[in-house]
């Protein structure tokens, strides 16, 4: 039986319009990035990457100390730090806070961490109106879908689909011009901002020496979320820590460039505590929820710990030949693309979707563009090895194991290898003639070889490499 994920992937591949949309969007993002990291415009790009990686590594290796420093700094400015072992605890805190403050309406800015724990859904289950305010995320909320891309959640939607969604969910006339659609969303969401009791955000960075939450965005919705309501709650993974505000000079330069090709995004907010004496706006209460949800498990793995360096720029998605074909919804969890393949198994459990780390060509484009230099292909290989070990323990994939054993045996014996090579060549027939292979497609188009042969044709056999090599060395002599 074909597994469900394969059926879904085939559906995406069959949708030429969708494929074109993903391809065009990611190509544009790639192009924008390339222009702003080019040596002529950013000569120290490689140095910045190296420094970013060093800082992330250092912070994670000393994480407990930085978490405590951050907590003390937030408390010193009148904020509150809340610790959550999982999504349930994070949501429970918010629900309890909303109940205590008699809050009715929550506005949210885009956050992958809150997607990860299904925060909005959890709040809505308790009849707490929760509105996404990033335009793409708002479209996705109205469409009741999952983000398609880490930085561009509605990347797969056409303006016509957006027009239909707005018309159906907001009762407005169908509008297909993005500028006018944006105005509709602005008007609806402006009222929500001004009426909301609580603003919920994620965090791009948590600055230990300042007790600051750093938010990076283009629309202004994160600024409104953290300026208009009387309570601000930031929900962030514990891996978001960086030691000093000065380190932002490195990370801000890399994040915007890698994500959307912007030297700096339109708004960067450093938020440290509630409003101060004499201020007329800004939240009266300031909370930071520090979330574990599996991160400490990843931290314990010395080698794969680097998965936690990720700053969620999405560059690896845009550059991935697999993501660019299958899109964001064919990955089993909210994190898609190469980084999703690395973190989903570690957060969700290795054997939940064992196919995932194998669905990669290991072309390493992801590692090449990663601003914090995560070795994604190598981590994928390690995850594959762990999965195979588990299979072996469970006594599965016997056939595959025997095939590889046989292959290894042959590869270590050059004479037998050569003999088999010649025999296979003879079976396939001469160049130009009708080969044995061409005559027997049905045979090869079945069983375990089908996946290979349904996509590829063998070229007609010529002389073997060993034969060519012998002639060549004879000539040189």
């Amino acid at each position: 039986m074909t597994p469900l994920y394969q059926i879904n992937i085939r559906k995406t591949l069959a949708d030429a319009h969708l494929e074109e949309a993903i391809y065009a969007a990611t190509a544009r993002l790639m192009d924008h990035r390339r222009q702003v990291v080019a040596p002529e415009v950013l000569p120290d790009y490689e140095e910045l990457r190296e420094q970013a990686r060093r800082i992330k590594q250092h912070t994670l290796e000393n994480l407990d100390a930085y978490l405590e420093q951050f907590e003390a700094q937030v408390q010193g400015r009148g904020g509150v730090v809340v610790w959550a072992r999982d999504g349930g605890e994070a949501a429970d805190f918010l629900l309890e806070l909303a109940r205590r403050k008699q809050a009715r309406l929550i506005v949210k800015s885009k956050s992958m961490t809150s997607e990860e724990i299904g925060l909005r859904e959890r709040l809505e289950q308790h009849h707490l109106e929760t509105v996404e305010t990033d335009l793409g995320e708002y479209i996705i909320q109205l469409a009741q879908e999952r983000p398609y891309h880490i930085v561009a959640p509605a990347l797969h939607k056409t303006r016509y689909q957006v027009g239909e969604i707005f018309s159906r969910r907001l009762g407005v006339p169908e509008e297909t011009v993005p500028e006018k659609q944006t105005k509709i969303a602005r008007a609806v969401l402006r009222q929500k901002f001004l009426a909301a009791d609580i603003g919920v955000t994620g965090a791009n960075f948590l600055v230990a020496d300042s007790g600051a939450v750093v938010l990076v965005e283009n629309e202004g919705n994160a600024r409104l979320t953290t300026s208009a309501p009387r309570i601000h709650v930031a929900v962030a993974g514990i891996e978001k820590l960086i030691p000093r505000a000065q380190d932002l000079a490195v990370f801000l330069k890399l994040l915007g460039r890698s994500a959307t090709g912007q030297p700096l995004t339109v708004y960067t907010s450093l938020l440290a505590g509630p409003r101060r004496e004499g201020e007329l706006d800004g939240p009266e209460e300031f909370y930071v929820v520090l979330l574990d949800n599996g991160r400490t498990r990843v931290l314990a793995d010395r080698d794969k710990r680097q998965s936690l360096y990720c700053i969620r720029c999405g560059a690896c998605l845009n550059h991935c030949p697999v993501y660019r074909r299958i899109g964001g919804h064919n990955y089993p969890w909210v994190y898609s693309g190469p980084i999703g393949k690395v973190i989903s198994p570690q957060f969700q459990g290795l054997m939940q979707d064992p196919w995932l780390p194998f669905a990669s060509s290991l072309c390493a484009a992801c590692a090449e563009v990663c601003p914090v230099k995560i070795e994604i292909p190598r981590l994928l290989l390690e995850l594959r090895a762990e999965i195979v070990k588990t299979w072996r323990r469970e006594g599965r994939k016997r056939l595959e194991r025997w095939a590889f054993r046989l292959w290894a045996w042959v590869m270590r014996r050059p004479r037998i290898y050569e003999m088999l090579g010649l025999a296979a060549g003879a079976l396939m027939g001469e160049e130009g003639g009708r080969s044995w292979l061409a005559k027997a497609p049905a045979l090869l188009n079945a069983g375990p070889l089908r996946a290979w042969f349904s996509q590829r044709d063998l070229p007609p056999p010529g002389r073997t490499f060993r034969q060519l090599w012998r002639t060549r060395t004879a000539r040189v002599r």
Partner: protein
Amino acid sequence: MPRESVLHKVRTALARKAGQPAAPAPPPRLRIPALDPEARWEQFARALEKLGGKAQRVADPAEAGRSVAALIGDRPAVASQAPYLAECGITRLPSVQSGFRDPAALRAACAAAEFGITSAQYALADTGTLVIAASGQEPRLISLLPPVHIAVLPAGRLLSGLDELFAVLPAPAECASALVLITGPSRTADIEQILVRGVHGPGEIHVIVVDGRETTG
């Protein structure tokens, strides 16, 4: 307790003991280019205009006041109480509301105004960025709710870029509850990657840089 549980798991994962200080961090990396005032202005104007913002340079505070008056005409505007705006005579312009004491009045005025006028603590030349520290004099909503943002600052506050900013402001949280970097008009490309300006924040931004020595801070 979740706090102890998470911290314990972190320490176990890292083989660290409670209370153990962090190892010395790699030194911060700040590279500040030598850039004369003229080059700062040119870079700033070029970067901001590339983003669809407008940069204007004037000779003195009085001319800045006249420029703002010409921009807003008799349409409703809200100005912050930054001393520099008063120095430029902006808070005294007839259609400008300023000097709020009450949060609700500030919010209502910002929601209704067509222009929000602020100063800026700094501006960054290489990216065309305004750096605004929230305070009683400089509320957050003025640069956020109105559809047009006008910022007026003396040329001496132009820094080369992020590195210089964090060199002169190593502890931004000490000086403000919110330090906001504004780089061009609010924008989105969430629908078919088509650029639209003015999503939630201002769709238009004008920055007036004033030559000469600054008398107030």
